[in-house]
């Protein structure tokens, strides 16, 4: 399989120099336009399930890079969450809230309101925030040093007012199953 592009943070470009008048913001429609047209075309090529996988993986890559470039390293869960909350809010990505967090068990429940990807979408009957799932799993893995599986359990698209994610650490048993 031919591959030319390999993402790195630098490749996002010098936005300040490149958009001296337009600035560093765009409209949410434009972001969604790109994401959902991608989804449409990719689904046509590889089907629903494979597309979800692609979006999950892309989210993970984004989460990993985001952690490296936008967050300061810390060992404290609360400090990490606070920082993340602030950054996500500041960047207009959504309002992150923790419902439960048990790092010993490796279980978290968190919600994102006013989500960039899906808040306000018409009800489709299926969860659609697979990109977010991947994004969150990479953030948690980067913080905790162990991989997490993140599943969206409630979504605007399924008629809920907020997206709720359940995160579980992948234990060795799970890993060996893979």
């Amino acid at each position, binding site marked *: 399989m031919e591959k030319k592009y390999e993402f790195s943070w630098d490749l996002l470009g010098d936005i300040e120099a490149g958009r001296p008048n337009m600035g560093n913001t765009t409209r949410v429609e434009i972001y969604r336009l790109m994401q959902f047209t991608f989804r449409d075309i990719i689904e046509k090529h590889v089907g629903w399930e494979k597309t979800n996988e692609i979006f999950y993986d892309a989210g993970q890559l984004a989460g990993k890079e985001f952690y490296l470039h936008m967050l300061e390293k810390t060992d404290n869960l*609360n400090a990490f969450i606070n920082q993340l909350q602030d950054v996500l809010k500041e960047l207009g990505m959504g309002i992150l*809230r923790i*419902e439960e967090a048990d790092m010993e068990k490796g279980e978290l429940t968190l919600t994102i309101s006013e989500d960039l990807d899906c808040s306000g979408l018409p009800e489709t009957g299926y969860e659609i925030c697979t990109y977010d799932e991947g994004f969150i799993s990479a953030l948690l893995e980067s913080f905790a040093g162990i991989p997490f599986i993140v599943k969206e359990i409630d979504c*605007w698209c399924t*008629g809920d*007012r907020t997206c709720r994610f359940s995160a579980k650490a992948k234990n060795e048993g799970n890993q060996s199953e893979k």
Partner: protein
Amino acid sequence: MISNEARLLLDYLEAQLYDVKTNQDIPTSLANDEGFLQLDKTIKIIRASVVELGNGNLSYQINGKGYVLGSLKSLQASLRNLTWKTKAIAAGDFSQSVHCLGDFSDSFNSMTKKLEVSIHEIKEIQEHFKMIFDTIPDMTIISNIEDGTVIAYNQAFLETMKFTKEELENKTILITDYCNDLGEHAKFIERLKKDSFIKNAEMNFHGKSDQIITGLVSSRIIKIKGAPHTLSVIRDITELKAIEKKLRESEELHRLLADNAADVIWTMGLDGKFTYVSPSVEKLRGYTVAEVLAQSPEEVLCPSSLIHLQKGLENAIRLIQNNLPFKVFRGELEQPCKNGTTVWTEATVSGIYSEDGRFIGMLGVTRDISDRKIMEEEIVRLSVTDKLTQSYNRLKLDETMDEQLKLAKIATVPFSILILDIDHFKRVNDNYGHQVGDRVLVELVAILQKHVRSDDVVGRWGGEEFLIILPNTDLEGGVGLAEKLQKLVGANIFTRAGRVTISIGVAAYQGDLSQESIVSRADSALYLAKKNGRNRVEYLK
């Protein structure tokens, strides 16, 4: 007007929304309608979710779709998040804040802020308290009043009790383990419970070693988590006690020595006043200590000795003023006694200096030397006394005559001497033996001494010859006394020897330059008396 079916549907929906119990059946006409059953399910979930949320149950799993359910889920998420944040705050993370609950958010956030400030203040106070607690130089402990469990102790406790921090860490320690006398401790607690605080009670403890630690305990009852505890500050006075004891013992020893010494020990200031006198003074002078302490120097010493004291004080003051060391004084002093007699004492006086070298007074030891004085006098007496007759010997006669010769040069009235000899003394010895002869000599001296004047000096000149020196007496006076003595002796009956007579030669001073010249004149007169028939007085004109 609505249809009957619509009425049944309305009743059913009303029951779902208004009633506590919903035993209404689904209207039969709709029982198989897929769309209605879906709606019915959602209504029932909404009802159940609202009831659970209303009851405060946040863990209720809300299943289902739709805008209203979504809002309920959002509310539940907010409340769950609030729960999580509250837990985080309780665990000390004050960075948590709430933004999605309207006015409540502000109240919650200001409460968090206030809590943070208060906790910070408490922590600061706690730290200050801990610092103060730890730096109190006296042992400080907090223990449960009932079972004695020590819940806090400071550095001074470890140091005094000789424990290391590690030795006591994570161990249950009981204050009673360190009390020397449990009965004493029990009484202390009893008193503390009654008065709620105790100041400076003396108690004994022991630390790691069995060495006794004496402490001055001040305690107060304080409540910790509702249970009464004692906060005790214990000052270690072990060393102080030891010094005190030593001092007391040494003071007692000194006092004992002073009080029981035969010598009088005293201290005196430079003003000549006693500051201390040992009780033995009463035995020496008859005065009590109190009487002596009140006496002036004139009452303490006889006039001839007073001068020593006055000179001694003057010297001492001069030396002290010039920063010179006090010179130890030793001297013989005559002191008046209460019964009117005097007593000879020997005093040794030295300076007392304070630890920093300041002169603070004089320390004297006064010893009774009456016996020595008597002995000395006896020695002097023996050296001038004739052993047999106890009259003066030749030495005293020589001395007295030399004195008289010196005095005669300036005196208007001269002195005279008598030389007398027992007539035929050889016969007495031959007839009655030497013992009777000796007895005659003794009895003769007794007669002479009895009838001479007090200033006259009677001495044995040699053998049975006696010489009497008569100060302030001319030849006529000397002859008069001689004749009186000659008659008295002649009239006396001597033991065993009976009658004994004497011949006397008299000489008065005539500008003689030596003893020999006056003695030789008296000798010549005696020779003349013998020659003229004995038992008579002669003199040379």
